[in-house]
């Protein structure tokens, strides 16, 4: 797949996996994120996205995150955002999405709050 967006697995600890997202999360590339995270959610209820390397996020990107969050919740898991860059954070704040996502300042902080052995939260 010829995409500017790269997604790598950073770490997997039992129920949770962390993916690093690098590049633009926009109309042209959001489908890559959707497929990759969707696949990860098949194996791990909780997915943490390290967004440090996101260069740009547009409305399509945000909508993909919102859909993936819903998908994770439906299967009893969670989608956690770590270190969204300022432009992305601004978008999350303007849309009010910052109040529904679990957002951490860094991947390390996300792991601390959601320990390795973490069992999926129940609804």
């Amino acid at each position, binding site marked *: 797949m010829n995409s500017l967006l790269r997604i790598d697995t950073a770490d997997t600890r039992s129920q949770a996996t962390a993916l690093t997202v690098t590049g633009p999360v926009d*109309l042209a590339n959001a489908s890559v994120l959707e497929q990759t995270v969707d696949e990860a959610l098949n194996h791990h209820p909780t997915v943490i996205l390290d967004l440090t390397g996101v260069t740009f996020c*547009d*409305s*399509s990107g*945000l*909508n993909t995150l*919102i*859909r993936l969050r*819903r998908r994770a919740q439906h299967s009893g898991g969670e989608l956690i955002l770590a270190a969204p860059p300022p432009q992305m954070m601004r978008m999350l704040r*303007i*849309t*009010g*999405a910052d*109040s*529904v996502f679990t957002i951490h300042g860094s991947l390390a902080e996300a792991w601390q709050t959601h320990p390795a052995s973490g069992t999926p939260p129940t609804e």
Partner: protein
Amino acid sequence: MDVDREAGGRTMLAGLLHASHLMPLDMLPETAGEHARAAGFTDLLIYVTDLEHRELHLLTGPNGTPPDTPRDIRIEGTTPGRAYQYGWLTSSSPNEAAGVHWWLPIVDGAERIGVLRVHSVYDDARAREDADRLAALLALLIVAKRTSSDTLAKLIRTEPLNIGAEMAWNLMPPATYADGRIVISASLEPAYRISGDVYEYALDGPLVHLTIFDAMGHDNAAGLCGALALGACRQARRQGADLAAKGDAVEAALIEQYGHRRYATGILATLDTRTGVLSWVNRGHHPPIIIRDNRWSSHLKCPPAHPMGTDLGLPSTVCHEQLQPGDRIVLYTDGITEARGADDSEFGLERFTDFLIRRHADGLPVPETLRRLIKAVLDYQEGHLHDDATVLMCEWLGPTAEDTEPAAALIGLLGHDPPPMSSTTRDGSSL
């Protein structure tokens, strides 16, 4: 003699009005020209402005362009363009013949349509009044016929429209509206490639509803989503829905159609012109800005509910703000503030509000301020916008619809003095 002149003016208007019932727009220049002779006007030309308000384009009839007549005239830096920009009559003296050439703005309500040129054998107040009335009647006739005229639709574009633009321009009300209580002006760029932005205003007794939507994406689907959002919003409102319910209705329509695959952000607002209380709901959008006294601006705070179509479950909060007469409410989309310059920096909120404040202090008509704003944003991006950039601005003047003087001055209606900002004088010396 004056009785003849009075009768001539009446004959012109009555004749044109009578002929207009069964007349395609294409015949307007020729028919208007014939009837205008009764008032002493010859060489009548009608120019209409394009979607981006950059040029004026000659409306031609079956006989084509008259000899030695420019088809297109720039708005910046020309005599006809000044009539258009400032809303006053400009004139020039023809070399050979007696009399005078006048350029008058053609304005429907508050919406600038184009300019009228006539040659007048008389150069006096009586003739100017006749010309004003002729321009006013032409405005009404053009507006009445434009929704069914491809001639006009093709004339006012300088490049092809995308499908989104063909849809959106037919959904939205005219770019300018004014009465004694309010002045509304809107702008949407790139005018030829619209994908998801849409604005609306609606007068409802003492209430003015103001809406701006930005549907995600930059494709035809975004345009459809914006159209659906606007339709759902109107339907709900006209069935009595309040602001929060209107947003919910849009959300329901989008989810039914797209199942969480598309969303729109937006502001739904209502201004009560009796009291100056602005009420609004923010659906995941940039908060409205209030500009006061040409120097002070405020970003209204209101906890956003989620974008319509995302179903995130955040509650809609209706917020209120007491306006003062003269306050301007500005709704906008991120294409304005996030326009990126050559060095990749954003046009930004501060530059945006500064521009509005400064131009207003210059005494420019509101529509002209927006025209220049868009030009500034385009220049900043070196002529190419990457996203829809929309502004909807509403100035609250007061509770009374009858006192129209301030509104007329703000939109640059003919008959008002040139704004003090300009050293430009009326062209020619014949007035």
